[in-house]
């Protein structure tokens, strides 16, 4: 592109388009987060018990602060990585990834007592 007027038009338009798309998303933010907040409240329900366990070890409680407070979704990392890679390397793409994440969730159960790696290993052995 060597026509300066063309560049000006493209440039101004791009700036407006980019920032306008941003506006559209940002306008949706309040609603999106209202939904997320509700969901969060639900998923946070089982937490208190585990927190209590940690609290009982009173004297070094502050030092143990970084221990995870909820194990319900802690496997999601492995699940997602696994799913992503499986999706890309296998023949069936895209959709598989998302399905698999959903599939993984119910399997989790007890958190602390169900070793995550069992499932992962099974997947890798395949």
């Amino acid at each position, binding site marked *: *592109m*060597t026509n*300066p*007027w063309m*560049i*000006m038009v*493209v*440039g*101004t338009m*791009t*700036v*407006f*388009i*980019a*920032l*306008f*798309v*941003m*506006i559209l*998303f*940002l*306008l949706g*933010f*309040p609603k999106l*987060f209202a939904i*997320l*907040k509700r969901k969060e409240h639900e998923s946070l329900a089982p937490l208190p018990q585990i927190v209590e366990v940690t609290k009982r070890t009173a004297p070094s409680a502050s030092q143990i602060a970084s221990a995870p407070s909820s194990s319900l979704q802690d496997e999601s990392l492995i699940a997602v990585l696994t799913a992503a890679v499986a999706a890309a390397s296998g023949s069936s793409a895209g959709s598989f990834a998302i399905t698999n994440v959903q599939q993984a969730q119910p399997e989790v159960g007890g958190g602390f007592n169900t070793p995550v790696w069992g499932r992962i290993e099974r997947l890798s052995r395949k």
Partner: protein
Amino acid sequence: MEQFLSQFIGTTGFIAMTWGQLLMLVVSCVLLYLGIARGFEPLLLVPIAFGMLLANLPMSGITDPPKDNLVGGLIYYLYQGVKLGIYPPLIFLGIGAMTDFAPLIANPWSLLLGAAAQLGIFIPFIAAYYLGFDLKSCGSIGIIGGADGPTAIFVTSRLKPELLGPIAIAAYSYMALVPLIQPPIMKALTTKKERLVRMAQLREVSKAERIIFPIFVTLLIGLLLPAAVPLVGSLMLGNLFRETGVTERLSDTAQHALINTLTIFLGVSVGSTASAERFLNPQTLEIIALGLFAFSCGTAGGVIFGKIMYWVTGGKVNPLIGSAGVSAVPVAARVSQVVGSKEDPTNFLLMHAMGPNVAGVIGSAVAAGVLLSVLN
């Protein structure tokens, strides 16, 4: 002994000095004066002016590249971070860690003001073209109107490094002069009634929104305009460090040790490009004039779009906040406040002006991306 004395004097810089260098030393002292005594963006102007001073001391070799088996000068090595485009994005990382985007998230429409103010980039771009500059120079000159130091330096270092000196000096000087440049334009373009508009209080912004915002902006801008990624991505990574609540260490270093160190290096290097032979030519004069024109166009663009929003919303938007869209954070937002409070001392526009103000940073980065992808 006589021979020795003449030889000794020959090794001093006095003999080798040209009139141009003397003039540049005077200019750098004036810049130092303005930075220190008048408070013109001193964090940048002091290093820039000192770099200029050092580079114009004859025969010091401080900007010399390595030659044969002789190592280069200090500023030659510091300058590599400018040349390779490393400093500006990393400075943006620190700026991101210092920026609060909440006013923008609360009032997304202010992004339009940040977009409109980018006319301050594209109109001078055309003007420079008709003054006979080549397209790359036009892009570098236009970007002064972005009113954003790192963006201007990043774009110029990639399009036309020869112009780094005058463009950086113009950009930072006019950013300091924003309180002088903007008010007359703002008053000329608005009616008293418009300037008296009071705006509704902004809603609160949740922590989750603040965290999602930088990620989302990076994805959006990154996909729309890949060339803007180094600037926008760094700005947003810094902002993410600020907002997560679990990366305070990184945010703290980004907005102190890292940005300060690189500001020194960037300032001195950029200043050093203003050597007499490069700086003292008629082009520099035109660039300085065009830079002022750019700031004026940006201000006018923002204010005019502010008027449009005033009409569209039936008088809910005060057009004075439009001028803040040029970025020059946070000076331009303060100018909106000052001009507004002259009409009505109880009208607080500052927070409303911060939205367009930070939007202007994003807008300029997008415009920079366009210029880089089109002209490079």
